[in-house]
């Protein structure tokens, strides 16, 4: 999966925390109208990335905790995002070996299914609690998947730059 056979530097905890923080920030931007409908779930993407690449350190528990924060930030039902991200973390941790063998395009097709299932869980909870489904919300599955490849490239590049600088 690392095309240039670069060995990546161990990722610092600071880097991981910072990336999750930035994702929360991006989710918190004032999205409106069509933008809101198409908004990819940055936190879900970054959590899936870390669950996939560092399943020993970033797991289901942390995903749940971040979900609780997302619930507070979004003023959604307590535990709604937490449940979604728990499922996401499970998908990432369980499938991490398979996903790491694929190249980015194949990964994206697998990731689409994981996102679709987690969005479905979120929509289901909302349907049970409020009794309505808004279908536009599910467009986020596709935008999140489309952004998956750029996100992977970006994070890999960031880790490589750190290697070069310190040598």
């Amino acid at each position, binding site marked *: 999966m690392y095309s240039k056979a670069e*060995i*990546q*530097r*161990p*990722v610092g905890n600071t880097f991981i925390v910072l990336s999750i*923080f930035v994702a*929360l*920030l*991006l989710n*918190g*931007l*004032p*999205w*409106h109208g069509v933008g*809101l*409908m198409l908004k990819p779930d940055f936190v879900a993407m970054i959590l899936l990335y870390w669950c996939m690449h*560092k399943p*020993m*350190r970033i*797991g*289901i*528990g942390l*995903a*749940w905790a971040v*979900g*609780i*924060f997302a619930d*507070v*930030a*979004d*003023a*959604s*039902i*307590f*535990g*709604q995002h*937490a*449940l979604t991200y*728990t*499922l996401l*973390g*499970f998908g990432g*941790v*369980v499938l991490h070996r398979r996903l790491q063998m694929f190249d980015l395009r194949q990964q994206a097709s697998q990731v689409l299914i994981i996102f679709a299932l987690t969005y479905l869980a979120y929509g289901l*909870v*909302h349907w049970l*609690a*409020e009794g*309505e489904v*808004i279908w*536009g*919300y599910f467009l986020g599955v596709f935008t999140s998947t489309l952004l998956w490849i750029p996100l992977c490239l970006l994070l890999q590049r960031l880790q490589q730059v750190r290697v070069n600088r310190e040598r």
Partner: protein
Amino acid sequence: MIDNTHSFRFFDRGPSPLARLLFFAFLSVLLMFVDVRYRYLESTRSGLSLLVSPVQAVATLPARLWNQLGDYFTLQAHLKEHNQTLQAQHLVDVAQLLVLQSLQAENQQLRALTTLPLRQTQTSQLAEVIYSERDLFKRKIIISKGASDQIAAGQVVIDDSGVVGQVTRVFPYLSEVTLITEKDHVVPVQVLRNGLRTIVFGAGDTSQLSVRYMPISADVQNDDVLVTSGIDGTYPAGIPVAKIVKIERDPAYPFARITCLPLAGVDKNHQLIILSSLAKLPDLPITEVSADELAKKSKSKRGHP
């Protein structure tokens, strides 16, 4: 160097992913249940919001800076024009205010004469909208005044032209306002033209409101203005809420289908006013009776399955 050398533990990796999934999923479902059913978690939520609010502040910073920059570079001509319209509006308002003052004095005298309880004067606070509808599913906004400014859940939020919503959740420095267009949000109103009492429901996904359970023969017309009736004590009386735009009278149904548009800029304004005093009404007197009736009903149900 190979990553994760320290995690090559052959036996002890803690619980399996499936066990973790089940544990945390169960925890989430439990939390959701407690939150939806009992609302026990508000203090936890407001505690955590102290941690989250800096992130939110940073996230909205670029947009705010952009707006401020825009304000700074507003053309002078615009300012001048704006100033003129404001002046004109001010004159009109002064005239109306004078009339209002005399009316208030007269009203007070009349009320004193009939020894009616005085209507409370409303004090109000200005707040800014920080977020609007973060979630597609919701018609809620977060405003910049919270428990530290003596905001309490249940207070009414208005703008310069009518009711916007109601404070439903209070955090230390923020509070959440449910808009009147939220699905199934209810406002008791009356028709300004003839005083007909009714109830306006939010429609949810559109910015419309609807009047349900109004008989086909009821005296309502297009362009009728609905104002709060003050019944139920939550909303003070006489604040404009909505204007009727469409009435369908289909004889096949017992009720007319009436669509209204909110008069206030429910989705538009940046500054809102929170009315601080809630009218205190005496409690409903029929609670015990209704409890008895309920008991009787459930008994009879059990008796005749």
